[in-house]
């Protein structure tokens, strides 16, 4: 029944892609670049993050105002008929600061959505099992680290929402037996919240992003010629959407004071719908009606509705299911590629073509006729036969789909035609 479910999901996915193929052609179908897309969006996050980093101050006192400085609106007045910056508003912002933060914010949402779609697509087309277990497991790790990096990003703003998330996280960690207290203290760098807390969050955010690179290396290591960037048209679309989103919904801070002062100025009131930062955090004052970002804060929704214990259980079971997914149902592994030593000349064609890095070229014993021989790593072999297609010497074969059988089949088809 599980196999039937996988078959149905694959059929639906292929139908969707077939429709898109007619519109975009196979070469440019964004859905065929579902893996490269999160990585492409990650570059936007890195560059916008570095730019935000230039102005961010990780202390309790200055964190919120430094973010506000980057992103506040250029509030204007008119003097002698010319627009001038409002001298009474100290935080008049950096040109394009709100756009850069907008790119970071919308890029983060885009990367999580693209990652989840990638995961679903790989799962629905049954490309996660058996020899593909390492990309899948590292992918689960990547999803977890991405979630962590996203949440710590929200904490850096140090507004009411950030403080509420810290309180919920500490409760969540403390509920763990034995290590809970120590973890909760490690999370905020001590027994209480200090300036070091923000430094710790900053470290989590940047170190987490670096860890993503490390995990991506693991993610790719068993894949030859991985698609690291989508097609040009997909890149234009992604770049365009991120810029259009950052321009239409820039991460501005329209505070209540600004709204009151400029109530008649539509250029300011038009941005009151989307507010990037809540009011600054006050330690000890917990504001619970915060805005949830569904893509990154769903664990907190679980904690809120179910309590810490049940939230741990649900998340734990979900992660466990994800981790065992590659190992069931098992594949029948009876057609692993076999090298005939006497025929192998060490030409490397099979090793160069193997999609899953399953063939190594190993030096033969000195004095042999040829220098290298192909060696198949059986655990990595996908039984696809691409190596067989590459070999000019009939030196590597799939036992149940032998080249001689294929030739015989071809001759039989031709004899029928006679």
């Amino acid at each position, binding site marked *: 029944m599980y196999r039937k479910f996988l078959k149905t999901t694959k059929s639906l996915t292929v139908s969707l892609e077939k429709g898109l193929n007619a519109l975009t052609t196979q070469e440019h179908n964004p859905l065929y670049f579902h893996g490269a897309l999160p990585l492409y969006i990650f570059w936007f996050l890195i560059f916008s993050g570095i730019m935000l980093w230039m102005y961010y101050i990780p202390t309790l006192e200055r964190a919120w105002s430094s973010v506000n400085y980057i992103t506040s609106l250029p509030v*204007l007045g008119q003097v002698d008929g010319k627009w001038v910056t409002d001298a009474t508003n100290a935080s008049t912002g950096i040109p394009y600061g709100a756009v850069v933060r907008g790119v970071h914010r919308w890029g983060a949402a885009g990367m999580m959505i693209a990652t989840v779609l990638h995961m679903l697509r790989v799962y629905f087309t049954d490309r996660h099992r058996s020899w593909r277990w390492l990309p899948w497991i590292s992918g689960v790790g990547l999803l977890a680290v991405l979630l962590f990096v996203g949440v710590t990003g929200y904490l850096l703003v140090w507004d009411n929402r950030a403080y509420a998330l810290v309180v919920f996280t500490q409760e969540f960690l403390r509920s763990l037996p034995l290590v809970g207290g120590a973890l909760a203290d490690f999370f905020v760098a001590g027994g209480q919240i200090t300036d070091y807390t923000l430094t710790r969050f900053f470290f989590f955010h940047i170190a987490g992003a670096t860890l993503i690179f490390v995990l991506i290396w693991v993610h790719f290591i068993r894949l030859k010629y991985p698609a690291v960037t989508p097609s040009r048209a*997909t890149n234009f679309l992604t770049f365009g959407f991120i810029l259009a989103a950052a321009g239409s919904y820039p991460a501005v801070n329209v505070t209540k004071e600004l709204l009151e002062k400029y109530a008649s100025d539509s250029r300011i009131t038009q941005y009151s719908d989307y507010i990037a930062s809540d009011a600054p955090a006050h330690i000890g004052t917990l504001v619970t009606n915060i805005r949830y970002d569904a893509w990154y804060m769903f664990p907190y929704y679980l904690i809120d509705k179910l309590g810490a214990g049940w939230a741990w259980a649900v998340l734990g079971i979900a992660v466990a299911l994800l981790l065992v997914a590659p190992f069931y149902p098992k594949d029948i592994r009876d057609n692993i590629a076999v090298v005939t030593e006497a025929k192998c000349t060490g030409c490397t064609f099979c090793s160069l073509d193997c999609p899953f890095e399953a063939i190594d070229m190993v030096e033969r014993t000195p004095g042999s006729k040829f220098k290298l021989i192909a060696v198949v790593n059986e655990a990595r072999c996908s039984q696809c036969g691409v190596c067989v297609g590459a070999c000019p010497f009939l030196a590597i074969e799939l036992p149940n789909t032998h080249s001689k059988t294929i030739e015989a089949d071809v001759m039989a088809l031709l004899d029928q035609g006679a």
Partner: protein
Amino acid sequence: MKTPRNTFGWIFLATGLVIFYLLAASAIATELNDVLHGPPFTSMVRDHMPHFLNAALDAVLPLKVQNLPYIKYFNPQHLSTNDNPFEQFNVVKWMGWAFIVGAIADIGTAYLTRVKTQVEE
């Protein structure tokens, strides 16, 4: 199915390139215009630049944003970011839409490239 795809391909490519130009040029003009025609470049740098370079810049960049003939459809007040910093959001928004349209133009070129079904074609 070759011929209808060719027609669509040319339509996508041509209109895509035109709209890309309109949007991208508007965005760049709104931002860069006053940079290259206003301080600090007017008195300090452009006074010392060779005449042919200045002439080339003036030919490529409209003298002011309002010189772009179609700008009234995007920017009714003809303001640059020096006049009104809020225009920065329009600059980014138009650039974004420009690239989305650019993607359509790119797909147009893919339509024009025939899908090969024979090794020798």
